[in-house]
């Protein structure tokens, strides 16, 4: 039984990363109904940025005490900001001109952007996987029958904290209200004096920043990164967003953790090679019987 409990912890940690990426997908889809295929690659870029920043800070091994905290905070924040900017740039250059084009056009563009980002990362660090400094000390804490590693706790806690911050931002601030309004009805929002373009850009910034955070976290958690990571992670995170309910922030979080759990438990109970298939099969089943996702969707109302 403790083995299952252990796998649940594994699943939650993995799910935390998916959740952070899923938040970006769900926010962007919620506001302009675009499946941003390049989002997964922004996640990988987040890891690459973190790698560069840690390099500048001279952090190559395990860190302790105040330096650890400084390094984590500085890297996390900078990685988020840089990733957010990448998201804004992509939106401005590649998606905004196509806002009124047939649905497929921005989709194909997003895929094209994904390819471009991947190739840029190949230029940056080559086509091979690379190591990421293990800056976090990793003692294991025993809680009952379960061993939870500090790294896993870090991932889960950070994901939840960021989600709470995001939820507060969206529900309690004026900018957040602008985002919700634009998501609900773009024309009405414009009539209310909201700068729709800026609001959409902000949405991309936040979503991409969260992907960047996921990138930093994944680097610390796995100790490696690779230009191609974004593809699979992005696909599953997108599944998570849909599972939880597109446009719904809590849904993305729930979906992310759920997908992480499904993967881990499938690996344990069945076999690793079926984990992807089970995740996608779950997606199909949920969409057939509950198309709005587990927590219901939050999308622009259609006339």
């Amino acid at each position, binding site marked *: 039984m403790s083995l299952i409990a252990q796998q649940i912890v594994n699943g939650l940690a993995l799910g935390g990363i998916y959740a952070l990426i899923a938040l970006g997908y769900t926010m962007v*889809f919620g506001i302009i*109904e675009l*499946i941003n295929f390049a989002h997964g690659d922004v996640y990988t870029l987040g890891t690459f940025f973190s790698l560069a920043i840690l390099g500048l800070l001279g952090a190559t091994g395990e860190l302790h005490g105040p330096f650890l905290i400084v390094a984590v905070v500085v890297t996390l924040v900078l990685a988020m900001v840089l990733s957010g900017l990448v998201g804004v740039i992509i939106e401005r250059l*590649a998606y905004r*001109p*196509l*806002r*009124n*084009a*047939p*649905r*497929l*056009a*921005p*989709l*194909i*563009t997003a*895929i*094209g*952007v*994904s*390819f*471009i980002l*991947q*190739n*840029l990362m*190949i*230029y940056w660090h080559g*086509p091979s996987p690379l190591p990421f400094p293990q800056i976090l000390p990793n003692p294991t804490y025993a809680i009952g029958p379960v061993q939870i590693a500090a790294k896993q706790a870090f991932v889960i806690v950070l994901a939840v904290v960021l989600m709470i911050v995001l939820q507060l931002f969206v529900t309690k601030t004026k900018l957040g209200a602008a985002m919700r309004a634009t998501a609900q009805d*773009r024309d009405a929002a*414009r009539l209310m004096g909201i700068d*729709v*373009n800026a609001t959409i850009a902000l949405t991309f910034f936040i979503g991409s920043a969260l992907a960047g955070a996921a990138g930093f976290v994944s680097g610390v958690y796995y100790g490696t990164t690779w230009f191609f990571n974004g*593809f699979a992670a992005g*696909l599953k995170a*997108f*599944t998570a967003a*849909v599972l939880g309910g597109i446009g719904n922030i809590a849904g993305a979080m729930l979906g992310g953790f759920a997908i992480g759990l499904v993967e881990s438990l499938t690996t344990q109970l069945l076999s690793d*090679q*079926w984990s*992807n*298939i089970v995740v*996608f*099969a779950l*997606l*199909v089943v949920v*969409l*057939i019987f509950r*198309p709005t996702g587990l927590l219901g969707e939050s999308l622009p109302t259609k006339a």
Partner: protein
Amino acid sequence: MRKLARGVPPKLARGLLFIALAAILPLVVHDGGFVNFLTDAGAYVLLALGLNIVVGFAGLLDLGYAAFFAIGSYAYAMLASPQFGIHIPFWIMLFLASGIAALFGILLGAPTLRLRGDYLAIVTLGFGEIVPQTFLNLPQWTGGPNGLGNLDQPVFFGYRFGFNILPYYYVMLVLIVLAVVVAQNLRDSRLGRAWIAIREDELAAKHVGINTTTTKLAAFALGASFSGLAGVAYGAKLQLVSPDQFQFSVSVAILSMLVLGGMGNITGVILGSILISSLDRLILPQASNLIFALAHVRVDLSNSRFLIYGAILVLTMLLRPEGLLPNRRRRAELHAGTAEAMP
């Protein structure tokens, strides 16, 4: 439609001319590699025409079309090879695999009937991942990652196709002509108009008495059947099928062909298909040599294929999202969209 003096409609005349040119091309161009490329590209033309029925005609966004390609190819691999000792002749397999693919089209399309737009896309994306990975995970049936090899070569009245590319080329040409004729007839039929109706306003279509269920299923089935043809022809030519050939990137490529060429427009789809195939298999691999030939500068582009491919997709969509040869209706739909003031 204006008719020429002899009573042959101009479109038909153009079509016949292209067929004639395509037929004599390999006899004039003595480059085996190029004719081979055209044959492979031909399979993708079939796939694009099939997807065009689903996405272009019926407006059902399918992001996992490679799954049907896989089904068609593996059907041939399992029923015309040493794998199970079954050797159904190529010509019969063309029909049989089409039927099997169509059946799967219905099976995989059925769950999506109630879903709107993008959810449909996601489910099809899911299937696009599930199908090839399942084939990968069942080695006793499908050979696993090694795939199945030594597939039967077609035999035509005693003549075995062998390694000469010409017979495969002509078979592919015939299949394409067949597919175009079928697609045109579908487009102009009552079913075709039903597709337009559900594409533009499903609710209204239902109220006019169109059975949206059967209409959508028909789109999936017919679209998938084309991939059955493509799978058989491609598999017979390569004599090998393996799961690596059906990744998500293949679905993306076929979709790109539609979007680039002009969704819904049959000629556009063929054009888009050949352009993307050329890009992937002819231009990009030779990009360094091409640039050298044009500008006499040696640039090593082998590390940049993804970048170039992605840039082309992005630029095309930014500059001409309705495609090179847009469908008249679609163009109207697009302009209705841009008539709204930009925020």
